[in-house]
């Protein structure tokens, strides 16, 4: 449905909302985000397994080798420190897009509702 509000004042500020297209676009975004998130999680699961594999296994002194730096320093913790915030950032894209798409759907509902209300402002008849 296309919501069109007539311009009653004669000015050029026309309001046009193709609510049906808005819903289509929002649903497309939601579907893409859902698929992307799923693929992301699949890859991330493998990366998490790597974090476990990268934990030091050779402990000749019965301690976790630290390579002479911070105690407990290891490749796994450094990889996590780099990859986790990066993955988190990518996820925040999906979170935001999801919120945006839902807001677009809500907006389409809101516009349709306002359309009905506007009709009632002038055209409501009971008989």
């Amino acid at each position, binding site marked *: 449905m296309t919501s069109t509000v007539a311009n009653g004042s004669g000015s050029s500020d026309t309001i*046009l909302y193709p609510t049906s297209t808005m819903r289509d676009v929002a649903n497309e975004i939601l579907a893409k985000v859902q698929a992307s998130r799923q693929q992301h999680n699949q890859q991330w699961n493998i990366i998490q397994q790597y974090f476990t594999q990268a934990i030091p296994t050779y402990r000749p002194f019965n301690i976790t080798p630290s390579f002479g730096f911070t105690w407990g320093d290891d490749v796994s913790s450094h990889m996590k420190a780099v990859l986790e915030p990066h993955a988190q950032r990518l996820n925040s894209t999906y979170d935001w897009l999801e919120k945006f798409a839902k807001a677009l759907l809500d*907006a389409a509902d809101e516009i349709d509702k306002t359309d009905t209300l506007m009709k009632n402002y*002038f055209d409501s008849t009971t008989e």
Partner: protein
Amino acid sequence: MSDFLHEVENALGEIINDVQTRRKVYEDDFIHPLKIFPKQQVDELDIIHDQCVQAVQTSLGKLFGPGTTFQGEGATAVANLMGDYFDHESKLSNYSTNGISEYMVQLEQLCSSTIQQMEPHLEAVSSFNSSNVLLGDIIHYWSDVFQKGPQALIDGLQVGPWSMGQVEHFLSGQPGAGPQVQSSQQLQMQQPLQQPGPQGQTPVSGFWDIVAAILAPFAALIIVVNIITEIIKQFSLDWHMESLAFLAWQWVSQMNSLHDHILMQNSSTNPSGNVGSIHTALKNEAANFMLKRVCHLPGPNLSPEQNEFAKQLYAVAEALYPGVLTLTEVQYLVQYFPKDVAERKVFMLAELKTMFPKLPDGYLAFFVLQGLSMTTIVQDVQWLQTAAANTQGKGPGNIYYMQGSALTNPYVDFVTAETYRYEAQSANQLRAWQNQVLNGQMTLTDIANLPDDAVKAFLMKTYRYKAQLANYNPNIAGSKLPDGYDGLFGTAVQEMVKANIRTAPWVRNEQSYLLDNNLLLDKSDAAGQRPDIQLQLSNGQWAAFDYTTYNQLGSKKKYNRSPYNFNIVLIHNGPFGKDEILTQG
């Protein structure tokens, strides 16, 4: 001699054990994890993200692409949000051509270059072991050098890649004649990541500390210390160990730096656009439509200072009443009221909108803009709520929307509520005068001095039929009112309502919408019929208002036709009788 050689071998054995243990730590716990780094999966994260962003861009083309019609404040809010979003995403990705983000490329390069640089050192250290037959020769060589002098050397003995002659030459300090292997002092570290090399820095491996600890028991046997030191130097063992430690340190430093950069990047690129701005824009647009187009209110047209003030007020109201007001409503209030009054009105409107959250944006603002008190507006809305609950002709209330709905169009509802107030007040006043006449408290002179002819006509009839009226009881059969008495009461009420309207502040206010040309009193329509009031709507249609008693309700259906979109009947009590209806509210 064999004693100190034995000591040298023991000390060297301990050093070999330590070095090989450390080498294995590097191999198993450092290089191996780097070698199994899941590059493909890490790359995939970026590729999936990139493809998603591109797909979103394509989808949005359906709203903003050529030939599309997506216009209005809500559309602008969507465009701004997405513009901001893509701006953030472009800063984040800084993608290489294959869709991998900059920092992930750096991470992968860092890991592969570290592996590449460490492996030669690990190989060199690996060859330094007790099973290396050359080690025995070297020990003997150095024991001879330190005990007998260089003349004791066996000519042509090869130790590793160099001859003993070369070693001797090198040790005697003759440049260019030494072995073709760099010494620990001559070596340059490769600097693949633009980090400072180990030269001039405190060694990070602790290798010499460990050697010193191992050699401590031999402090008295300087020859043991000398031989072992020379052997370490000859194999560049200290350099290999130092290099391994440095490369690990460098990797850690680079990883820490990457971590910091990613955090910084995240803080500056995280999608932060408030998706609620779409809703806010639509509310604003709805309020604007209501006030400007439904209610005929010009504006808002503010000076820059007024606009700034409006924004400040809106921000404060948002903090106190989140999501309740719209900027448009505040702008109207700032335009229509002096600064100090506008501030009070803004918070009054916020309170009202909180009390009646289902009313559309702009609805209550219109009532506030007419200068009514909060109490009056609350009462008006409550009457309208009762009217909205009525089923026509059967409800308990005194306002009937024969056509159209209550609580939708504030331009109409305002006239309904405010004139209903006048109607009720007028009917009460008229009954009070009627009682005074019946009780002899009002003389003919008093009646003559009243301003309205319709009121005078009703009271004159009351005066004339005082005795009949005094005995009137609607519950007794045969008891009846004088002919036309009800009608005179109704006409008097209508006239009093109109008199009130003519002097109402909301009619005479210059900024009011209710000017004479769109509020008709005492005019007949094209069909020759005359509702008490006709109000022209912004779409050119009309609303009809009629003030009457309940038993006249049915006759008002005649206005359920064009040009009337609204036909509103407002019921007042009669002079007395069985059809008395309780006052609303």
